């Protein structure tokens, strides 16, 4: 989908470039551009909905060296380049596609299906109107409606989702979507051994986040690209392997026996334990760095000593020590 992103003066990303893989785990200190990367992608999605502007030459712009983000794409769209730039300080909505060929409608459709998530357990637990179940919203706030829609339209997918939930969290035996007294849809979890029913609002944060990720992983028509911030949040370190597997199910469906197009995944984390799980695939790890107020990206696999690093210990420990970079700057007197 997205092959690379190049930034110029976009927030802290003054001069940064990143080649994107089918799966990307982005690590780095706060304020190092992880969220800015996702915001740039979502801005591309937003602007792709609008009619394209006529090309504006640099000379016609009010500001010089204003923010600019350049996107390149994977086949079959690899001949196109999309550039978001600013005409003035207050107008940063210029999307230009070059060349604007016959494949723009197809590419535009793919761009518009990109999604970004920052899950909120309060929102996930909330009841949702039935009509809002088409796709999961950015905070997971319509999960109940999404699951109900899945049950009605793709019952096999919901059955697989339910089976995976029960395998990962064996304290539950079932997942039920039902109309609540307020007329909206709510989610309930049935405890094993008939020990009772847990409404979503009483479920743990980790359980709710897992439900949201399951809903993405078992979406029969998933987005072209999914960004998830703080993917480790709320999970016990031992559960992170399951979380990684669900994301791999999105990005590498063939490995899971699924016959659908792969979803490009960009996930951010601050968890060394999650990073440990990428020892066999260092090409999927992106390190964001902040030096002063400027941020850059690099790929772990591009380091010349990556083989030795992987032999010497866990990636998480290496990251914490600072060997990999991607750690906060410290002020020294």
């Amino acid at each position, binding site marked *: 989908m997205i092959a690379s992103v190049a930034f110029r003066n976009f927030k802290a990303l003054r001069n940064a470039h990143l080649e994107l893989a089918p799966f990307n785990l982005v690590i780095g200190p706060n304020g190092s551009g992880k969220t800015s990367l996702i915001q740039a992608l979502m801005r591309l999605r937003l602007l792709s909905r609008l009619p394209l502007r006529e090309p504006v030459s640099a000379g016609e712009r009010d500001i010089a060296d204003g923010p600019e983000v350049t996107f390149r794409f994977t086949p079959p769209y690899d001949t196109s380049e999309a550039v978001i730039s600013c005409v003035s300080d207050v107008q940063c909505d210029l999307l230009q596609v070059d060349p604007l060929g016959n494949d723009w409608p197809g590419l535009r459709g793919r761009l518009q299906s990109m999604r970004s998530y920052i899950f909120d357990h309060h929102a996930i637990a909330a009841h949702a109107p039935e009509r809002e179940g088409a796709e999961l919203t950015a905070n997971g706030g319509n999960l109940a409606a999404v699951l109900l829609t899945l049950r009605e339209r793709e019952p096999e997918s919901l059955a697989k989702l339910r089976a995976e939930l029960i*395998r990962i969290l064996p304290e539950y035996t079932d997942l039920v979507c039902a109309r609540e007294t307020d007329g909206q849809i709510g989610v309930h979890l049935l405890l094993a051994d008939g020990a009772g029913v847990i409404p979503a609002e009483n479920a743990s944060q980790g359980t709710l986040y897992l439900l949201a990720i399951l809903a993405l992983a078992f979406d029969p028509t998933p987005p072209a690209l999914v960004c998830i911030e703080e993917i480790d949040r709320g999970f016990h370190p*031992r559960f992170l*392997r*399951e979380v990684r*597997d669900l994301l*791999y*199910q999105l990005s*590498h469906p063939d*490995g*899971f026996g699924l016959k659908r197009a792969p979803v490009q995944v960009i996930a951010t984390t601050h968890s060394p*334990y999650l990073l*440990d799980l990428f*020892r*066999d*695939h260092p090409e999927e790890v992106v390190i964001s760095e902040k030096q002063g107020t400027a941020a850059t990206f690099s790929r772990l696999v591009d380091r010349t000593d990556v083989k030795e690093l992987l*032999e010497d*210990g*866990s990636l*998480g*420990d290496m990251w914490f020590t600072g060997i990999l970079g991607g750690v906060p700057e410290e002020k020294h007197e």
Partner: protein
Amino acid sequence: MSDARSGLKLAIISESPADEAAIKVLVEAVLRERATWLTPTLRARGWPSVAQVLPAVIRHLHFNTDADGVVVVVDSDDSVVHTPAHDAPGYFHPHCRICQLRAVYRQTTKKLPAARGRDRVLRAVGVAVPAVEGWYLCGRDERVTEAAWTSGQETGVMPYTRGELKWRVYGTDRPSLAHEIKCALEEVARHRRDTRRLEHDFPGFASLANDLRSWRRQID
């Protein structure tokens, strides 16, 4: 093999639930009896984390549980492979993981007072060369042996990579945990009744088996 759980209460330190499930089968196959497994299970984050947490694990098992023994299995990765020469009295190879783990155990238990009716928690150490997937392929792919790997280390031409072994076992380089457990259990089922082939092809497993067989003598 009897279905009745034996008096041996054991702990495993493993890197994943898949390793743990397979190693339990192999340990019971060697002991020729069922064991009682300590819960919650112990997990480490790969090498060198295993060696780092092992002293604390041993002390915990010794003082806070009634475990009879602890089973430690790690991958060799690209480290020096254990050889019979390493077993010579007083010998210790600083880059061999079996030697290192045995040394950690020796140092940790040396000054522990008796607790819970035993002098110490017994240990069984095995190293899968180069990874546990090698053990899984034993009996299915005769080209995968510890000797093939060490020969590759000597000549500089490796017979396979760890990634290739994973692919051969799981059919993908990104197996889900559930798939990994399923494949691991299917593969070790070949050795459930007879571990001699595994011990022959993988001396790192034979070390584990020898440790386990010595436990009865030490306990009785």
